[in-house]
C-alpha cells in the first residue's frame, strides 16, 4: 500500500511533465493520469481501512533528514475526495476550454496543483508541509489568473500576496518550533510539545497564516473575487479543495499535534470567527447578484461551520461523543467539497451556455439546462444541510455537540445560517420554474453535465446514505 502513497504524488507529477512535453495529447494524458491517481487514492483508502495508519520513508532516510509520507483515516478520506473532485473536474475541463493556448497552459498547472495537494495531505513534517503549501498556493494563483481578464489577474495578484503572507507566517511558526524543540516531525513533536510561550506563539503564527489561506472571516476578503473570476473547473477546485488543505492543517495541528497546547479560550475565539463567517458569508451570498459570487460567499460561510466545531471538541471529554462530533466535522468538510465543486461546475455550464450568470436574468435560460439545474439543486440541498446529504449528518453532530455541552450560541448560529442558505439557494432555484417547455433531451452537454451531477449527487445522496464508514475510518487517526 505504500506504493499507492508514492503513486499519489508521482503520478500527477509525471502527468504534469508529460502534458508540458506533449501538448497535443495533453487532455488524454491528463484524464488518464486522473484515473490512475484516483485508483491509487482508492487503494490507499482501502489500505488504511484494513491495515491502519501507513508510514513510508522515501529512500530509507529516517525522519529529520529524509522525506516521510504518512496516511491515516483523515488524510486517506481527504485524498479520496481530492481525487474524485479533480478527476470529475478534469473530465469537465476537457470540454470546457475551447482555446488551445489556454488549454496548453492549463493542464501542467492543473496536475501540479494536484501533486502539491496530495503531497500536502501525505506529509508528516512541518517543513514539507510548508513547501507543499507554498507550491499549492503558487499553482492555484497561476490557475486563477488563467481567465486572462483584468479582473481575474487583479484578483489573482491579491490572492498571491495573501498566500505569500500566510506562508511566511506559517514559516515563522515552523522556525520557532524548530528552535524550541529541535524537530519538525509531527509524530515526534506530538510527544515533546508542551504548553508554554514557544508553543503558543508558534501555534498562533501558524494558525493565523493558515486562517488567511483558508479564508476564515475576517481574513476572507481575497476569496470571493479570486474564486468568482477564475475559470469554472479552477473555481471548483479552489473552493472545494485548496482552502480545505489549509483547513486540514489547522485540524491536524489543533486536534492532533498540539492537542494539549490549545486552550478553550483560543477555541472559543475560532468558534466566534466561524460564527461570524457563517452569518456574514450567508448574508453576502443572499445579496450576491452573480451566481459565482454567491457560490464564493457560500464557501466563506461553509468554512465557518467547520470552525464552530472547535469549541465543542475542546469542551467534550475524549470518548465516543467527541468522536461523533469530530466525524461530523469531517463529514461536513467532505460534503462541502463535493457540493461546492459540483455547484461551480454547474454554474460554469450556465455561464457558457447563457453568456452570463446574473441571477436576476436566469428565468428561462436555466430551464434549457435541466440537468445543470438539477445539479445546482442537489448541491444546494447539501449546502443547506438538508437530508439526505452528508451535511445533514454533519450538522446533526454539530447541533448535538452544542446541546451536549450547553453552548447554545453555536446552535443558534447553525440554525440561522441554514435558513439563510435556504434563502440564497432557493432564490436561484425559483428562477428555474417557468413556462418554456424543456428541450427534448434532459442532458445537453454530457461531458460537462455528468461531472457536475455526479459530484452534487455524491454530496447530497452518497455521503449521507452511505457515509457511516467515515466515522469508522476516523478511528484510525485524525
Amino acid at each position, binding site marked *: 500500500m505504500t506504493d499507492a502513497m508514492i503513486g499519489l504524488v508521482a503520478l500527477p507529477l509525471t502527468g504534469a511533465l508529460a502534458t508540458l512535453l506533449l501538448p497535443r495529447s495533453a487532455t488524454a494524458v491528463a484524464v488518464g493520469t486522473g484515473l490512475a491517481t484516483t485508483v491509487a487514492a482508492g487503494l490507499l483508502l482501502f489500505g488504511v481501512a484494513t491495515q491502519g495508519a501507513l508510514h513510508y520513508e522515501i529512500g530509507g532516510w529516517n525522519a529529520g533528514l529524509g522525506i516521510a509520507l504518512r496516511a491515516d483515516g483523515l488524510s486517506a478520506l481527504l485524498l479520496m475526495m481530492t481525487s474524485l473532485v479533480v478527476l470529475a473536474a478534469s473530465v469537465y475541463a476537457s470540454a470546457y476550454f475551447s482555446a488551445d493556448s489556454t488549454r496548453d497552459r492549463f493542464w501542467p498547472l492543473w496536475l501540479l496543483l494536484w501533486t502539491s495537494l496530495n503531497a500536502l495531505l501525505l506529509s508528516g513534517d512541518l517543513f514539507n508541509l510548508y513547501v507543499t503549501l507554498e507550491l499549492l498556493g503558487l499553482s492555484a494563483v497561476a490557475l486563477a489568473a488563467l481567465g486572462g481578464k483584468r479582473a481575474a489577474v487583479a484578483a489573482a495578484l491579491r490572492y498571491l500576496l495573501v498566500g505569500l503572507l500566510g506562508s511566511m507566517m506559517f514559516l515563522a511558526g515552523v522556525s520557532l518550533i524548530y528552535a524550541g524543540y529541535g524537530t519538525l516531525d509531527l509524530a515526534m513533536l506530538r510527544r515533546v510539545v508542551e504548553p508554554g510561550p514557544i508553543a503558543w506563539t508558534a501555534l498562533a503564527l501558524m494558525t493565523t497564516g493558515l486562517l488567511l489561506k483558508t479564508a476564515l472571516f475576517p481574513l476572507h476578503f481575497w476569496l470571493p473575487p479570486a474564486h468568482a473570476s477564475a475559470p469554472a473547473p479552477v473555481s471548483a477546485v479552489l473552493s472545494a479543495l485548496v482552502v480545505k488543505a489549509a483547513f486540514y492543517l489547522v485540524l491536524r495541528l489543533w486536534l492532533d499535534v498540539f492537542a494539549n497546547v490549545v486552550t478553550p479560550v483560543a477555541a472559543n475565539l475560532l468558534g466566534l470567527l466561524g460564527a461570524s463567517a457563517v452569518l456574514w458569508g450567508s448574508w453576502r451570498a443572499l445579496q450576491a447578484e452573480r451566481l459565482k459570487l454567491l457560490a464564493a460567499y457560500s464557501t466563506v460561510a461553509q468554512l465557518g461551520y467547520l470552525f464552530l466545531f472547535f469549541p465543542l471538541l475542546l469542551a467534550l471529554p475524549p470518548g*465516543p461523543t467527541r*468522536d*461523533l462530533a469530530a*466525524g*461530523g466535522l469531517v*463529514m461536513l468538510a467532505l460534503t462541502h467539497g463535493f457540493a461546492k465543486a459540483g455547484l461551480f461546475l454547474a454554474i460554469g455550464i450556465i455561464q457558457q451556455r447563457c453568456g452570463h450568470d446574473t441571477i436576476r436574468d436566469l428565468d428561462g435560460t436555466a430551464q434549457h439546462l*435541466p440537468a445543470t439545474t*438539477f445539479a445546482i439543486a442537489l448541491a444546494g*440541498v447539501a449546502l443547506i444541510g*438538508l*437530508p*439526505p446529504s452528508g451535511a*445533514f*449528518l454533519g450538522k*446533526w*453532530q454539530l*447541533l*448535538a455537540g452544542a*446541546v*451536549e455541552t450547553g453552548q447554545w450560541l453555536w*446552535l443558534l448560529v447553525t*440554525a440561522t445560517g*441554514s*435558513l439563510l442558505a*435556504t434563502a440564497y439557494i*432557493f432564490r436561484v432555484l*425559483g428562477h428555474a*420554474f*417557468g*413556462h*418554456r*417547455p*424543456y428541450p*427534448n*433531451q*434532459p442532458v445537453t452537454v454530457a461531458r460537462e453535465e455528468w461531472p457536475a451531477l455526479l459530484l452534487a449527487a455524491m454530496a447530497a445522496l452518497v455521503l*449521507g*446514505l452511505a*457515509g*457511516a464508514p*467515515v*466515522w469508522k475510518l476516523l478511528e484510525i487517526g485524525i
Partner: protein
Amino acid sequence: MNWDAWLPVLVVASSLLPGLVIFFLREGSHRLRTALNLVGAILKLVLVGILIWGVFHEHVYESRWTLAPGLDLVLHADTLSVLFVTLSTVLWLVTTVYAIGYLENAPHRSRFFGFFSLCVSATVGLALAGNLFTFVIFYELLTLSTYPLVAHRGTPEAVRGARIYLAYTLGGGMLLLIGTVWLHVLAGPTAFVEGGILGSLPTEYHPQLKVIFLLLIIGLGVKAALVPLHGWLPQAMVAPAPVSALLHAVAVVKAGAFGIVRVVYDVYGVNFTDQLGLLTGLGIAAAITIVYGSVKALFQDNLKKRLAYSTVSQVSYIALGTAILGPVGTIGGIVHLVHQGIMKITLFFTAGNYAETLGIHKVSEMNGVGRRMPATTLAFSVAALGMIGVPPVAGFVSKWYLGLGAVEAGMASWVMPVLITSSILNAAYFLPVLYRAWFRDPGPAWPAEHIPAARFETSAALLWPPVVTAMLALAAGLFAAAPYSPLEWATLIAHREYGL
C-alpha cells in the same frame, strides 16, 4: 436480509424508482410515463395489502440502515404507519389517474410526475419511519419534493406561493430538527414505541422535555397548518388541482398531523404528555384552529381558497382527538386522518373539474352547475355533507367519536361547544354552495367552457377519481363496523396504544 426486512423498503421503492426513471423520459413518451406511474401505484397497493395483513397478525416488518454511529434509518410497519401508508397509497393511485387526465398536453409533465412520485415516496417513508430521526429525514424530503410541484406552473404567483410554502415548512423543519437533536442527546435514539419511551426519564429533565415538546409541535404544526402557522396553505392554492389534493389530503398536512400523533402517542406517550400538562395546550391550539379556519372559510368566494381554510379547520380535528385523553377520543382523531383525506380529496378533485371543464373558480359562478355536471356535483355534495358531519358519510363517525371521547375524558365542557360551533360553521360555508349548484338557475354561459359535454360531463380521467373517492367516503361511514375499515383499524391502534 429476508422478506420481512425488505417489504418496507419495497413499499417506498415502488414509487421512488419509477419516479427517478420518469425524470429522464422525453416529454412526448406519454404512454411509457403513464405505464410507469400506474404500475408503480398498483404495485405499491399490492405490497401495502401484504403489509396490512401482516401487521394485523402481529408480524414485524423492519428495515434498518446505519447512517452514522447511533443514527439509524429505520423503516418499521406498525398499526399507525399502516393506516397512513394505506391512505396515501390508495389516494395516490386515484390522484395519479386524475393528474394524467388533468395535465393532458400540459408542458413539463416528466418533471411533474417525477416529483409527484418522489413526494409520495417521501410520504410513505415518513409513515413507515421507525424513529424520530427517520421521520425528520422524510419530513424534509417531503418539503423538497413538493416545492417544485407548487411552483410547477411557473407563473410569478406560483413561484411566490412556493417560496412562502418553503419558508414556512423549512423554518418549521429547523425547529423540528433542533427538538429532535435535543431529545436524542437526552434520551438516545427515539424509536416510536406504543405508549412512549420518555416516561421513565428522571424528573429533572421535565422542564427540558416541555420545551422540546413545544419545538416539535411547532415544527409539525407548520405542516399541519395549526393557527397561526397556517399562512402557507391558502397561498399554495395556486398549484394545479392534483397537487392541491396531494397537499391537503395525501401528503403534506397529513404528515404534520401524523407527526403530532406520533410524538404524543409513541414518543412521549399520551399519559406522560398529560402528566407534563401539555395535552390541554395542544387541545386549545387545535380548538382555536378549528373555529378560526371555519370562520375564514365563510368569507372566501374562491372555491379552492374556501376548501383550503376548511382544511385548516378539519385537520385540527386530528390534533384535537390526540389531545383528548382516552381511547375513544384517540379513535376519533386517528380515524379522521383517513376520513378527512378521502373527503377533502374529493372536494379538490371536483373543484379541479369545475375549473378545467367550465372555467369555474368562484363559488358565485357555480349557479346551476349541478345540471351540467351532475356526477361531479353529487360527489362534491357527498364530501361536503361528510365534512359537516351528516350521517352516514365518514365525517359523522369522526365527530361522533370525538364527542364521545370528550364526554368520557370529562372535557366535554369545552370540546362539545367547539364541535358544535364548527359543525354549524361547516354547514354555513358548504350548504349555500350546494344550494347554488343544485337549485339556482345557471347563467347564460359558463366562464370558459374547455371541455364540451359528450358521453360524460367531462373527460373520463377527471370524472372517475372524485366519484370513486366519494363512494369511499360513503363506504367508510356506512361500513364503519366492517373488518379492516378505517374505524376498526383506528380502534386496533387505540387498543394497542392504551394496552387494552
